Structure formats: structure tokens, C-alpha cells
């Protein structure tokens, strides 16, 4: 069975070599880590029937690597999928030293 676009998304994240969790971690993280989560849909409806499905969600990566390499690596993986995505914010946490990258994505199909 062919992988779904969502499975392809998860597999692409795995190819980066970075750690990612779905929705969140059950323990505090010391090193660099990422989190991905679905949070909505952008389905196409006609006559109140969902004719096409699309998932939307977020991808966050927390790193203390200021070189930009993680950002480039993750965005290269996203580009390899041909999905819709954009970098929504980059935030620096004074108290932890983390650089927090946040992407918004949209994937055709269901989870």
C-alpha cells in the first residue's frame, strides 16, 4: 500500500536525523528537539459533503544551534514533499537559550 501524504511527511522528518515527537514530549528535553501536531483541516466541501481532505498543523523545532543548519535541513525535507508550508515565526528564548522555529503546514489527504 502506498504511503499517504501524511506518512510521507512523518518519514521526511525522520530523514533529517533530528528528534521529533507527535504532539509533545512526556519529559523535559535538554537537547535539540522537534514537535509536530495536526490542528485543523482545510477540506473542500460541496453540498455539505467533504469532497477533498487537507490537514493543517504545526512543526516546531527547538535548537541551540544558531548556524541555521537545522532550519535549512528541515525546510529541505519539507520541500521534498511538495506540500504547502511556511515559516511562521522564529523566537529566541532568553531563559533557555533555545531558538524556536515554527512552521505551518498543509497536507492533502487524511491522517
Amino acid at each position, binding site marked *: 500500500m502506498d504511503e499517504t501524504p501524511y506518512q510521507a511527511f512523518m518519514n521526511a522528518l525522520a530523514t533529517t536525523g533530528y528528534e521529533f515527537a507527535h504532539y509533545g514530549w512526556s519529559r523535559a*528535553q535538554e537537547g535539540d528537539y522537534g*514537535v509536530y501536531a495536526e*490542528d*485543523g483541516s482545510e477540506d473542500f466541501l460541496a453540498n455539505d459533503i467533504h469532497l477533498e481532505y487537507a490537514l*493543517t498543523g504545526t512543526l*516546531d523545532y527547538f535548537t541551540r544551534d544558531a548556524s541555521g543548519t537545522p532550519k535549512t535541513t528541515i525546510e529541505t525535507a519539507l520541500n521534498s514533499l511538495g506540500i504547502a508550508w511556511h515559516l511562521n515565526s522564529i523566537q529566541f528564548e532568553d*531563559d533557555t537559550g*533555545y531558538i*524556536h522555529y515554527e512552521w505551518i503546514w498543509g497536507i492533502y489527504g487524511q491522517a
Partner: protein
Amino acid sequence: MGKRECKFEFDGDLTAKLGGLAANSYSILKQTLYPGAGALADEIKKRLSGHKRTGDLADSVTIVQMDQNGGKVNTAVIFAGYDENGVPNAIKAAVLESGSSKQKKTPFIRPAVAAVRARSAMLMQERLDEIINAEMEK
């Protein structure tokens, strides 16, 4: 051969009514925007209501005063004011929306926008139709 023509003509009353709409265009646009912005504000408040610690944040959701500039009319839905500790509600909303390494993110603004986009457009169209119909029936 007799002259054959079909004449089309608007009477002065219709012209005056259309002129009245044009003269009040800013007011009409402002009245039109409110239901759209209101739907978004309501949806954001609804999504915040599930968070016990964010009652104040829900109360801070505000539709700012309409602004008109260069033929455009606009407004915005914002998180106004500060909490009891002096933290801007806008910052609290951003942290909740995007999360941090210490707080799990809970997106509620972007999903709210997606959820009400079509309904907001419909409500604004309905309001505009009401205003125009009322003007034309005077």
C-alpha cells in the same frame, strides 16, 4: 419607415438612491465589517473558553475601532490590555498560540480564522445586502 428604438432610462429616484449609497460608503463599509470581525472574535473566545487559566485572555478579545484611510476601511481583532501581573495580553496570546520549550502550544487564532473565514464573508455579504436593500426601499 417609422423610427424604431427601445429606450432604456433610469429615473431620477434611482440615481438619487445610488448617490446616497455612494455618499455613505464609509459608514456602510464599517457596518458591513462588524459582523465579520464579530464572528472571528466569538470564535476565538469560544476556543479560549476551554482553557481555565485564560479567562482574562478571552475577556481581552476586542474589535478595534474602524479605521478609514485612502478609500479603505479596516478593523482588527486584538488582545487588549494587560493581565493582573502587568503582562500584555497580546504576548500571552502569542505564547499560547506558538508555545515555547516550557509551555505546550495551543493554536487557537489560526484555526479560528480558518473556521470562520467562509462564515465571516457570508455574514458581511448579508449585512451589505440588508443595508443596500433598506436604502433602495426608502
